[in-house]
């Protein structure tokens, strides 16, 4: 290490990991239903897809958490995305591919992916 820039590079590399430990850092939350119904419907790969995608795009202030059953077992896997702009949006019947698209269009792009939301899948 010879310059401050080297120091900065190490810092940025670990930033998302350290962000996790700051309770107030996350203004955007991704919560995936991981109760028995969720797991049975394939929620595990969805969680992984979400966290990989967040990492890939080097997003700060985004947390990926799990949640229990919200009572809509037939619509699992369910993901609940909370952003400052759109508040809480519930996506249903998620897949890893859909998860990636949600990260790109909703979280990064700011446009809710309407076709996956609960309102359009009743």
């Amino acid at each position, binding site marked *: 290490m*010879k310059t401050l820039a080297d120091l900065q590079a190490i810092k940025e590399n670990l930033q998302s990991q350290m962000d996790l*430990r700051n309770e107030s850092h996350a203004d955007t939350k991704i*919560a995936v239903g*991981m109760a028995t119904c969720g797991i049975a419907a394939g929620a595990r790969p969805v969680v992984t897809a979400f966290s990989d995608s967040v990492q890939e795009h080097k997003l700060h202030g985004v947390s990926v*958490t799990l949640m229990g059953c919200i009572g809509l077992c037939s619509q699992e896997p369910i993901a609940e995305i909370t952003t400052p702009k759109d508040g809480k949006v519930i996506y249903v019947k998620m897949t890893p591919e859909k998860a990636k698209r949600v990260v790109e269009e909703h979280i990064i792009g700011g446009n809710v992916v309407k076709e996956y939301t609960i309102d359009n899948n009743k």
Partner: protein
Amino acid sequence: MYRSQVLVCGGTGCTSSGSPAIIERLHEEIKKNGLEDEVQVVRTGCFGLCALGPIMIVYPEGCFYSAVKEEDIPEIVSEHLLKGRIVEHLLYKETVTENGIKPLNDTNFYKKQHRVALRNCGVINPENIDEYIAVDGYQALGKVLNEMTPEQVIQTILDSGLRGRGGAGFPTGKKWQLARTIVQDGGQKYVCCNADEGDPGAFMDRSVLEGDPHVVIEAMAIAGYAIGATQGYIYVRAEYPIAVQRLRIAINQAREYGLLGKNIFGKGFDFDLDIRLGAGAFVCGEETALMTSIEGKRGEPRCRPPFPAEKGLFQRPTVLNNVETYANVPQIILKGADWFSSMGTEKSKGTKVFALGGKINNTGLVEIPMGTTLREIVYEIGGGIPSGKKFKAAQTGGPSGGCIPTEHLDIKIDYDNLIAIGSMMGSGGLIVMDEDNCMVDIAKFFLEFTVDESCGKCTPCRIGTKRLYEMLHKITSGNGTLEDLDKMEKLCYYIKNNSLCGLGQTAPNPVLSTLRYFKDEYMAHVVDKKCPAGVCTHLLQYKIIEDKCKGCTACARVCPAGAISGSVKEPHSIDPAKCIKCGACMSKCKFGAIIKE
């Protein structure tokens, strides 16, 4: 990417209550559930709430699991980490509310704290330099080397008002300035760190070294740049194995990264560090004795002046600061002197770490802004005294300090206020005592310690403390006279005024301050031959109240000395000649028939 992190305390407190086994089990269970790529386990330094160890915190939810047992781990992993269902019954009670989980920083223990020196303890993995860098580590060193002259560094520390956290409270910037300017012959200078934390009940420095070793390394390099030194020594007690190990790891990592060694940041500044282990002598916490010990000689103090800033280690100009003092330095450089001096009181700036112990619910480590009252520390942060007992006094400064009685509970804690009431800041041990503590006995305890630890070089300390101890022993044995009290006080001042080093000069403080605030207890011992708190066994008698005794024989069976006699269903009695005053009968009696007086 890890979506979740489990931080487990790896400080000495939690390590001894079983955190290594918990970490191992966590790894096993996480693997079993196939979560290795999603959940990371991080071993951190001390969180502070040692009484509730082992402690574990799960992010991003910020769930605080306390007093975790190994057998709880499968449930936490399969419920919380896999299914996202927080295991509420294992959470720290205070964080569970009707509206979900209260953040840790809002709990009584944490909300009044302000963490500067401890800011990374319990937050980062101390064995990973990258994590330290990720929380702005080594930025201050970079800033100093790239943007500041040594004079500017010293001026910043001076302006911040930082004073030595080892207890005496000498202005740190002043010390650095003297070491820079007194001798300017171009020869070697040294930077030393005092991590020989010897006060009974104090563990602030240990926790900083265990939880955030790099902060000390960074600050020492900054001090080196400021005074023009290229070599530093950390003098740490061998009784702190975890701290020593993490320091070693940290120094090696810093060397690998070129943050120690030659030409740091390409700015032509060389600095390296070595560790020296202390062999457990209390006197080696005294600065001149510490340096003598680093030189490889027997750890004995020497006369001051010349002060270390002029002739210190190997007779060369030396800066010696305490661990906690150093822990403040990088933050001051980064955030500025004004930020630091905005905290605290007029003459004591910043925060102070206290190791809270004794009769208190939340035993542990707290960092509070200077000027916080003792009442806030004991009753709000500390959670009060167990079993609803009454506060009697708090002891600060260990064997060199004194006690703060109830009437001073509302005093604002800073260097000068504590001196004014006959105690001292000390390194930060704060031992709370309740109505069951005998103050004469406490004074005797500390004197016994200093008698043991006096190095023997000067007579007032070597012989004076011994005589003082004997007088206290005489009083607690019930043989004291009023004349002894006067003699004792005189001897105290004699020792204070004539001893060579800080050890002897402060050794009588526990006696003087208890004499000042608890004269009535001394009088009870001397005149009435009673120990009001029921501690001094020579002045105690155990008795059975006939009316209350049912004759169950439980006491007679538990008595190790065979001092209790009586037949079944008849009141028993204790033979004072045989009684060894162990109290076993009293704790066994279900009817409250046994009293001590």
